[in-house]
């Protein structure tokens, strides 16, 4: 029991929680934005992979780290445009189209990486984001050292959650997005263009997903390798349900999830005789449990996964 207390009281654990949560916050908020407008985006896993690859590649080729993040965001926007064209304009199955985007984006990132970065014994690396300590915040007891271990994109993720919560619930644009996700016909009657709103939400949401992927290569690690996203996209999709489509709860869900992940990583090193694979399984099993607990109570956007065609019901 004292082992558990030691782990929970350590600054290292909480610093890791924020670090592990960051890609999940970006991914969950991105998926949430798409779904609020009525589009399920299963392209997330591939978009995160591509963002991780292209952001890293830009920096490897000489760009600075912020440009790397921007390049990743742009690539995500392009895949978002593809997904929107398939699901909004053509009204195709959002499930299958999203899987298509994931398969395409991830295989394309492996192809480009292998083509542009020659095979070598050890993977090539870049200089990742350095931790940032904000004056004032850094002096707080306990919270200070935890925050000072974080890199700028993590601060960005935390601010983004607040910003998105404000935008969705307190601005006319947010109202238009929510209306489109609940009832696009009613939205159109109010002068909102549901097609445009869905395009915008999917493009911006996909850009956020790609930034989440790029965090992995530009901050958490310093190199790219295939399969590094490791299902974080799918976990984000589960977290959106867990969060009942609310940005604030999404932030809480991602942090809670990251807490369990950081905790099991530390527990692994002190507990003997348990196969490490059991620990690695926990994030996926937790996601499934979270889905089951929340699915009944969650307020699903009513028009989620329903294509909108003008004049058709």
């Amino acid at each position, binding site marked *: 029991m004292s082992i558990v207390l030691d782990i929970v009281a350590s600054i290292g654990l909480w610093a890791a929680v924020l670090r592990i949560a960051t890609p999940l916050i970006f991914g969950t908020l991105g998926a949430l934005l798409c779904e609020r407008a009525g589009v399920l985006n*299963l392209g997330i896993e591939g978009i995160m992979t591509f963002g991780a690859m292209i952001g890293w590649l830009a920096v490897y080729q000489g760009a600075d780290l912020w440009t790397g993040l921007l390049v990743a965001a742009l690539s995500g926007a392009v895949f978002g445009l*593809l997904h929107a064209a*398939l699901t909004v304009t*053509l009204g*195709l*199955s959002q*499930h*299958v*189209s999203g*899987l*298509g*985007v994931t*398969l*395409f984006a*991830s*295989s*394309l990132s*492996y*192809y480009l990486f*292998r*083509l542009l970065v020659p095979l070598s014994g050890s993977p090539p690396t870049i200089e990742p984001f350095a931790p940032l300590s904000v004056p004032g915040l850094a002096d707080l007891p306990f919270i200070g050292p935890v925050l000072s271990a974080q890199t700028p994109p993590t601060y960005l993720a935390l601010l983004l959650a607040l910003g998105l919560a404000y935008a969705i619930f307190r601005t006319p644009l947010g109202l238009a997005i929510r209306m489109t996700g609940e009832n696009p016909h009613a939205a159109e009657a109010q002068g909102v263009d549901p097609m445009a709103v869905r395009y915008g939400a999917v493009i911006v949401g996909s850009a956020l997903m790609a930034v989440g992927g790029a965090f992995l290569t530009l901050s958490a690690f310093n190199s790219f390798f295939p399969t590094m996203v*490791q*299902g974080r996209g*799918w*976990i984000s*999709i*589960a977290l959106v*349900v867990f969060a009942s489509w609310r940005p604030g709860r999404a932030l809480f869900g991602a942090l809670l999830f990251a807490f369990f992940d950081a905790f099991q990583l530390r527990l692994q090193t002190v507990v003997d005789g348990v*196969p490490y*694979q*059991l620990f*690695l*399984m926990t994030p*996926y*099993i937790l*996601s*499934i449990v979270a*889905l*089951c607990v929340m*699915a*009944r109570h969650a307020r699903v956007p009513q028009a989620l996964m329903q294509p909108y*065609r*003008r*004049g058709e019901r």
Partner: protein
Amino acid sequence: MRFERREHRPLFLVVLTPLLAVAAALALSGLLIAAAGAPVFEAYWRILVGAFGSRLSATETLTRATPLMLTGLAAAVAFRARVWNIGGEGQFYLGAIAVAAVGSRLLAEAPGYLSIPLLLFTGAIAGMLLLILPLWLRLRFSVDEVVTSLLLNFVAVLFVSMLIDGPLKDPLAFGWPQSQSVSDAAMLPKLVARSRLHWGFGIALVLAVVIHIVQSRTVFGLKSRAAGLSPEGAVFAGVPLARTLLLVACLSGGLAGLAGAVEVLGVKGYVTTDLSPGFGYSGIVVAMLAGLHPLGVVLAALFTATMFVGADGMSRALKIPTYIADVTVALSLITMLVAVFFAQYRIRR
């Protein structure tokens, strides 16, 4: 501009759709090959030669098509009933490890005529169990089975990794995580001598025909199609929805588990965590390319296997990463979706 549903879909359009989709996918990945500075037509010619140029390569392509046919059928029967089974990869691995476990222990001494059918059955049951869980969660808690079946892929692969690193580890594999082997008697006989092509290919072909007959000629086939076309309508017409979906899930998970079993008994004899280069995921593309038609699955699996096997030789000769095969296959899923759409709708101004 708007889209209008076609009243009538001529047969040539149905046949032409996948061909156009594949052509478009090849053209798009051709751009990527050209961007890498390699001759596009030579690259595709080398892929074709690499896949069918010799007796060895042709049998290799058919060997590779075998698990793809089974995972493709798994996805096709599920999608037809709108059971979104994306967990083919996990079911494949669970089927494979179940076969390795039972085949290296319980049935290690059994003669082939006994162990082969029993082991194939074991693999199918294992795959089945892994899909019943997400389906049950959907029926009980209305949780989307897409996400749960996807997440279970990771759990299944880690479970396999745990077993082949632990109780099922082969002590003779020099510390490499690899399962114990099934007995030689349990291995599927070769279909063509001095090649890797085994009877699993025949099994997959027969199953494609059987499933086609079941879907088009039996009450269960009708019910499963009805469940996919309109769940509410199916219930109204007296179809027991939950029971039908459960049977579909058993069939789909069973086929994916069988794919793993066949790959172990036909090719390797043991399990490693790289047994499948994404057979479960490629199966989804195969099913979509086939328009969810069981016989079309055979052709779509052949196309996919051609790309994967042919890309190896092409890659060595032209210095194009083999991942181009994955890109082409993924693109063909997207182009197929678009092609099917334009076969169903026409553009009106």
